[in-house]
């Protein structure tokens, strides 16, 4: 069941395409008076089925030895493959150039990084998907959190003091934002979720490869945007798109990369696995007050269009839980052995 590498699947959201990607965002998080908590989902008692319902597809594949005696095992695994085929896309191998200076002027220092082919989530992680992690007690699963963050776990709470993303209440997301990217999460929360589902945050070079599509070819073509080289505010959600908040993670299908990955530019900044390291024009380091990680892609409030390109790199404090930063997950191709019939 190989992933269709270069297929351009028709968007299921034809109505959205007809509107040229125009969406009404719900803006910033709802006020307390208008908050509508998502209901508690009903999950199967069987652990394997429950893991599937929680979206832990790669964890199921990773821990197959744990499930192989289950009578549902073969069926669930085939369903996992089907889900991953739909939810992930192949990013081919290539090379990216990562600017090493803040100004990133022509002639400034760059690092060329070869990127192997890998799998990337088509959508950012949504509130609905992240809810499973919260409901499963993810904030208490210390195995998914680096030891240096354990004393700070108690600070990672929502507006009502429950473990969860910053803008949630009583450990629940607003049901109207179920399909919007989850925001208000630190790098550590993004990483913990990705480990829980058996995936990982993309490295910065992987993210840039997915957005710029700089293949190993004779053309040496680098896209400024996933869809091409010209900014088009009808293909993404940035400040100039005049939406003023996040939109569903499946919005703007006309802004997809060639492999159908959506919203690499705009809507929310995306955490990567890479620590942010940058210098000024005189090779002096520029650092944050605390460790920073690279975020890429721009968000709904990105004012300068050039800060929402495939090459623009910036950082955010690893513990920052901002209203405009989310994430998506990646997977090593070596772990996707079913692609080659393995």
């Amino acid at each position, binding site marked *: 069941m190989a992933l269709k590498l270069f297929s351009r699947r028709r968007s299921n959201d034809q109505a959205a395409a007809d509107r040229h990607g125009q969406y009404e965002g719900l803006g910033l998080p709802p006020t307390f008076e208008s908050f509508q908590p998502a209901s508690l989902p009903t999950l199967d008692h069987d652990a394997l089925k429950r893991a599937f319902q929680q979206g832990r597809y790669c964890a199921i594949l990773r821990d197959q030895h744990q499930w192989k005696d289950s009578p549902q095992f073969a069926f669930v695994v085939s369903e996992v493959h089907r889900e991953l085929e739909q939810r992930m896309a192949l990013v081919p191998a290539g090379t990216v150039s990562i600017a090493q200076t*803040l*100004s990133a002027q022509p002639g400034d220092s760059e690092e060329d990084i070869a990127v192997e082919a890998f799998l990337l989530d088509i959508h950012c992680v949504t509130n609905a998907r992240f809810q499973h992690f919260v409901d499963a007690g993810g904030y208490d699963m210390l195995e998914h959190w680096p030891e240096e963050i354990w004393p700070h776990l108690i600070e990672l709470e929502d*507006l009502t003091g429950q473990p969860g993303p*910053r803008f949630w209440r009583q450990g629940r997301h607003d049901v109207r934002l179920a399909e919007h990217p989850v925001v208000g999460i630190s790098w550590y929360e993004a990483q913990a979720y990705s480990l829980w589902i058996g995936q990982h945050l993309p490295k910065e070079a992987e993210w840039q490869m997915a957005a710029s599509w700089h293949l190993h070819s004779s053309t040496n073509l680098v896209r400024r945007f996933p869809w091409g080289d010209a900014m088009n505010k009808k293909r993404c959600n940035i*400040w*100039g798109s005049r939406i003023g908040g996040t939109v569903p993670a499946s919005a703007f299908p006309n802004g997809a990369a060639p492999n159908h990955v959506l919203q690499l530019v705009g809507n929310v*900044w995306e955490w990567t696995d890479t620590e*942010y390291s*940058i*210098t*000024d024009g*005189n090779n*002096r*380091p*520029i*650092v*944050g*007050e605390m460790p*920073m990680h690279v*975020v890429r892609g721009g*968000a709904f*409030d*990105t*004012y*300068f269009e*050039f*800060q929402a390109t495939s090459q*623009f790199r*910036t*950082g*955010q*404090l690893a513990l*920052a*839980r*901002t*209203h*405009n930063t989310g994430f998506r997950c990646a997977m090593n191709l070596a772990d996707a052995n079913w692609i080659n019939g393995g």
Partner: protein
Amino acid sequence: MATATYTRSATMPCLICEQKNSLEAVVCNTCGAPMALIQEAVAQDRDPCIVTVVGDSNVGKTVYLGMLLDMLSNRADDFEAVPKGAYSVNLQHSVVSHLSMRQFPPKTAMEVDDWHWAYYQVRRRKRTTDTYDLVMPDMAGEAIAAEVANPKTFKVIRSLLEKSAGAILLVDGALAAAGSPQPDFFALKLMSYLDGVIATRGEKKLTTPVAVVLSKGDYCPEVFDDPRSFAQSNLNRLWNICESRFANYEFFATSVVGALAYGSDEYDNVVPYPLHIAPRGVIEPFEWVLTKLQGDCKRR
């Protein structure tokens, strides 16, 4: 000052301090304000409203005002803002140019003739036909502090505040959140000064609308959750004087920078770098002040 009273004369009154200047004067010889303001007002045949952005040094007035004007020029929130005179664009040009290069604009100079002045016509494109003529100067925080500490040191500031139809008071939300009393004390002094400058009868509260804006919200995102409660908890002196002496005030939070990092220069001085720009809460205080402006500011 009424432009209607100005007729053919060898002198022209300054828009701010109303002192007479020669027709060839570029800046007022009394207060230093540009004479282009009165020339524009005469051309528009009406007095503009003055909305002052005030605050302590390094609180972010220049960045806030520059971003506000640029966002209005970009028709944010259905606003239409037209600069009157090329000089009106200098501030937003400087701020946007610096921020786009991941730098902060230089500190505003103390000298009045080095300040940026913006004269804009602003209206809401769809909601109303009202048009506001606004003058919004970018003043040096140190000059404001000097005037507050020793009144009449900077007459132009006094004249501006006397004439202000509305004010936007920026307060360093990050410092306040960190427990520093400095923002609270400065704001208290400034509001007290404003109380003394704008004369009222007896115990009547001042009606000039004042938007108190907690700046640098990127440092402390909690200020956005409930600016009023934040101010009451962390800027209690300011809160109390607002409640006692002002009839029209509201609290807001704002940030322009999405993330901040630090480097050093050749002298080992710490240099802050705005890594990316994500304006938040910039338009709302201005919009609120606009709704509170009196009828004289509007043309229909």
